């Protein structure tokens, strides 16, 4: 029986170790705009929408806009996909993606809208256009 416990312990340790490595690799930190510009890999930034900055290119289905943080700094964001509903009403937007060519190339947007409800619809997430054959 001891054998069983030893194997179980080894297995658990190996798995938790593997989990910890995966954890470190996939961590996406919340960063300020300045930090995001220096960071490599996937990051997330949060800010308010500059309501005069957003453009939607229907032919390419590409949404570009700028986020404003509370200090008035700007961060351009580009997102390939359909413009999220209620985008213009957003109180705050979280963009998750990589910083490339002076802007965040967002894989995912979390759009927080004002709501009277305490529940799931206050914030909705939008993933960028599905690649063909992508697992979901």
């Amino acid at each position, binding site marked *: 029986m001891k054998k069983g416990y030893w194997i179980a312990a080894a297995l658990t340790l190996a*798995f*938790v170790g593997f989990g910890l490595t995966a954890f470190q690799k996939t961590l996406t930190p*919340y960063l300020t705009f300045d930090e995001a510009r220096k960071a490599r890999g996937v990051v997330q930034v949060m800010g308010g929408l500059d309501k005069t900055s957003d453009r939607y290119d229907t032919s390419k289905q590409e949404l570009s806009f700028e986020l404003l943080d509370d200090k008035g700094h700007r961060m351009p964001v580009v997102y390939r996909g359909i413009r999220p*509903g209620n985008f213009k009403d957003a109180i705050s937007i979280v963009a998750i993606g990589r910083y490339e060519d002076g802007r965040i190339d967002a894989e995912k947007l979390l759009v927080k809208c004002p709501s009277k409800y305490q529940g*799931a619809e206050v914030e909705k*997430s939008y993933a960028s256009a599905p690649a063909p054959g992508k697992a979901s």
Partner: protein
Amino acid sequence: MTYFWPGVVALWGALFAGLASAVTYIRVERGRRDLLAFARTTYAAFATAIVASAAILMTLLLQHRFDVAYVNSYSAVDLPLHFLISTFWAGQEGSFLLWCFWGSLIGLFVWRSAKEQEAPVMVVYLSTFLGIVAILCKQSPFKLLPPPPPADGVGLNPLLQDPWMVIHPPVMFLGFASLSVPFSFAIAALWKKRWDGWITRALPWALLTFLTLGTAILMGGYWAYKTLGWGGYWGWDPVENTSLVPWLFTAALVHGMFLQRARKRHRKINLILASTAYAAILYGTFLTRSGVLADFSVHSFVDLGITGWLVGILATFIGLAAVLIAWRWRSIPTAADEDTPVLSRSVLFILGIAVFCALGCVILLGTSAPLLTRLSGNPSQVQTAFYAKTTTPAGFLLVLLAGFVPFVSWKGETLKEFGKSARRSLLVAAVLTFLSFVLGAKRGDTLILLFTAFFAADMNLRAVLRKAKNSKFAGAGGYLAHVGVGLMLAGIVVSGAYARSQRLTLPVNVPKKTGDTTLTFLRVIPGTADRKQAMEVKVDTAAGKSFYAYPKMYTNSRTGQLMANPAIKSSALMDLYVAPQEYDPGQPETIGRDVRLVKGTTTNIDGTGFTFRDFNADRSAMMRGEKTVLVLTDLTITPPDGSSHDLTVRYVFHMDGREAEAEEPDIPGVPGGKVRVMAVSPNDGAVVLRLTGVSKNPADEFHAATVESLSVDVTRKPLIALVWAGFYVMMAGGLLAFVRRAGEARRAVLEASEKPVSVGGPVPATGPAIPAHTRSPLR
């Protein structure tokens, strides 16, 4: 702050009755056996008060008492009855009350079945709910709004207006409440040093949690799949994870309990697992209800100011269990070591429990990322890739172990014997895997997973059939559940890895092809009072069949929110998932205003200056009498930010009356702006420009007519039906096991009542006699 007083009286009544009952039970435990009747009476009073407060809240909701803040926040006059009932658990306070409601009812069964353990079990059991009742007294659902009372409420979140969301929370909280029972029995076992008797009585409740929590998780996933339209059923959101993790620990506990029953050893495992599973529920409650994850979830968690309470409850119970286990560690009897080979059911069970726990811990780690990283500075979140990476190997191991179990006895098997009994299933799995390969599953990792899943399903299916043949089907619950696990893994792998998705824009009445399917957007069907606005899309399949899909897209009348629900055409082999993304009603052409500039002058349009510097025409070509002339127009553009940009725009003019070719470059410094030369008149030194995205007045801009169109994400998900089917089979197995073990528990209680039992006095060292349950392996 004023309150609806009958509700408040009921809640405080419950708190005091519960406290009184717990204190009395402690005194019974200390030897005052004469107080037992009083302890039970006060428990009954506690349960009555909880049920009464739930009934009061329900009545207020049904009567549309909008002067009550909770009713006003979630309910409205136009809700149909079933949604009106579900507003009870639409908010935090109501769902806490629902949890207590189930708990108070379950307790009535617990004190009957606990017998000689009644007093210690009930003390712990009551305390698991008193904390929540205290929260409800503080954060009451019976607060009144200042007068005048509103005529209508805010209404129920439109996403939750779905039949699945009506029953999902009650089933979920039944599972939460029922897990208090194994926890209470485990703590009582540690307290009273009764190491074996509790397993039989607590097992049905652990199975009930396994069933109800599992069903609730599935309902949530199915709801997400058919409502939210992102194409999946599981998004690794904290709210989902915090119900999955307790379920995984409960699965580990159930296996541990079976192991202890069969082998009369491994006692420590179950004491730890029962505590961990309950702690996982409390920790999940803390994560999702305290507001600590507010910036990281697609669900919004509002901090009601109960974070301190939740931390207190969590720390109390984890501390209590940890201290008791540490204190009793040496006195927990361990059986003499026996030499069991690795290939034995005992070892397989221990490995399975280890994987369940490791998986639960890793998912908790990911979910807690924002909390953990906050300590070191930047709060961070893990990508969903983390969960895919970690759960895949764990799922593989679990299913592999489940495949080994049926033909391996508790005492062990030699590899040769096992090979003999596994041969048939290996063959079946190989054939099915080859078939999947032929049908298009080409990735090596998915083929390995599929082979394992088929192997496990077939091994266990054979075990079920063997049991049924020997008229012992009632004991086949575990095997049946494992058949379901195998099927589910196959469904998850295939529908995930081989889903094909494409985004299409469908102009009205124009057929568009994706894969072998053709979609045609026909029209918008306007909504009526009881039907949402929908899009009619005709789908023609390669097989020559055609049908209509009706993805819904409508604006919620209360919130003005745009809602979109996918249309799903399900068949046994494939789901066609059509998720509407955007509807463009189309617009007629608009005629704007062009800008005429004379050489050397500057025109200012909404802050941006345009200076026409010069032409640059290819005069020699003109001289040679060529029919085509290239004209370059030099502009200087000064956007409002003070910068200055030079831009040269090409324009090709044809002498023979063909239309001129003009390029349309972006205007530097003006995001989204475009410029195009419409005409040049060399004689006046003037150029006519068409500017897009510059003027703030829409009437100045030109737009070509656009056609009415619908954008959709079309996903083909193969074998997703297997995910649901596998789950049903797993739950059917769980139900079978539940029925059997509940019967056993009842018999054990009856046996115990025949013996003279001294409550509070010294207790016999062993529990009620249970035949050592050593099933022989199936051959």
